[in-house]
């Protein structure tokens, strides 16, 4: 080990936290070098001075009161989050059930023929609802825009909505501007 390394290791010899092997090597070097001994003496004085510094103690009582308050707030938020997740999960369940019921009807014939004998072409949009969307908000949006869930949710939470081809662009514009829609695309 060279002299630079000895100088670099001295502070940890002084604070008593040097590894045994390095300690032995440095102590041998100290026996042979007055310069290193002076440096050690200086660092020891510095160590004692800093160690004896009267650094202010943490405000334990006030700090704990604050931490306790924050912990309780956290717990409260956690509970609220739990209910929110449960509500959203229940909402999705209802939507999925509705989709399961309506899906076979829609899938049987994607081109519906009304009594007037004019055909209505259906097209689809893929959307992702935001995690804060409620069932009521989703239902209202679908009803207002004459949309139906025909597939979903996928593993990443995507739903396929049916819309008549004529109103698809309009529906796309409306959905794009909704707070409860995170993503929408025309298929």
């Amino acid at each position: 080990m060279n002299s630079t390394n000895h100088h670099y290791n001295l502070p940890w010899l002084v604070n008593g936290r040097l590894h045994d092997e390095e300690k032995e090597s440095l102590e041998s070097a100290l026996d042979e070098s007055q310069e290193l001994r002076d440096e050690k003496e200086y660092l020891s004085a510095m160590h004692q001075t800093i160690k004896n510094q009267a650094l202010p103690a943490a405000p334990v009582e006030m700090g704990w009161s604050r931490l306790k308050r924050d912990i309780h707030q956290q717990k409260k938020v956690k509970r609220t989050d739990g209910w929110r997740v449960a509500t959203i999960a229940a909402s999705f369940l209802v939507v999925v059930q509705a989709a399961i019921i309506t899906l076979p009807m829609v899938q049987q014939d994607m081109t519906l023929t009304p009594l007037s004998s004019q055909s209505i072409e259906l097209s689809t949009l893929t959307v992702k609802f935001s995690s804060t969307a409620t069932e009521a908000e989703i239902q209202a949006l679908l009803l207002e825009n004459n949309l139906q869930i025909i597939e979903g949710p996928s593993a990443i939470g995507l739903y396929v909505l049916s819309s008549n081809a004529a109103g698809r662009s309009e529906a796309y514009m409306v959905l794009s501007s909704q707070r409860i829609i995170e993503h929408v695309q025309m298929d």
Partner: protein
Amino acid sequence: MSEIAITLLERISKGDEMAMKEFFEVNSNVVYRYVLSRENNEVLASEILNEVMLEVWKKPLAFEGRSALSTWLISIARFKVIDYYRAQKRHYSDELDDQMEDEGVEDAPIHLLDNERHAGFISHCMEQLSVSHREVVHLTFFEELPYPEIAQALTCSVGTVKSRMFHAKEKLKQCVARISRGEINYEFN
């Protein structure tokens, strides 16, 4: 030490507030004094202490006992300080002064450090150091951590820790020498 801490942390993971209180009482000084030594700001030190302990409450089992508990806490505190600067959109640089040359080794006036009056010199000179130098000196001489633990807490290499300590010591020497020569205005309180 680690076993007691791990037991406390396990109780905290089960939501035991009394265990958290005990943990806070035992360990708050290490975090508070580390931030204070770096930033010289008691309000910020209290803020960071709260943030660190809240992190412990949320993820108590993140401590795996592979380092000293103080190393773990200091490392969380350091990241919280960086986050604080980021939130304030203020520049934070850990590398500050690492490449700076010392102005030349001066005579080490050891006699200046031998009594209470001159202890003030060191406190004054510590304040003149860069943050990265000051924190290494604090962790080496106040917390008395071994250099591998300091490197872990500061997420840098052991070489960087040793180099910072060496240069910090040289700068402290220069500062004390200047005070002794009357080149720096220093009044003992």
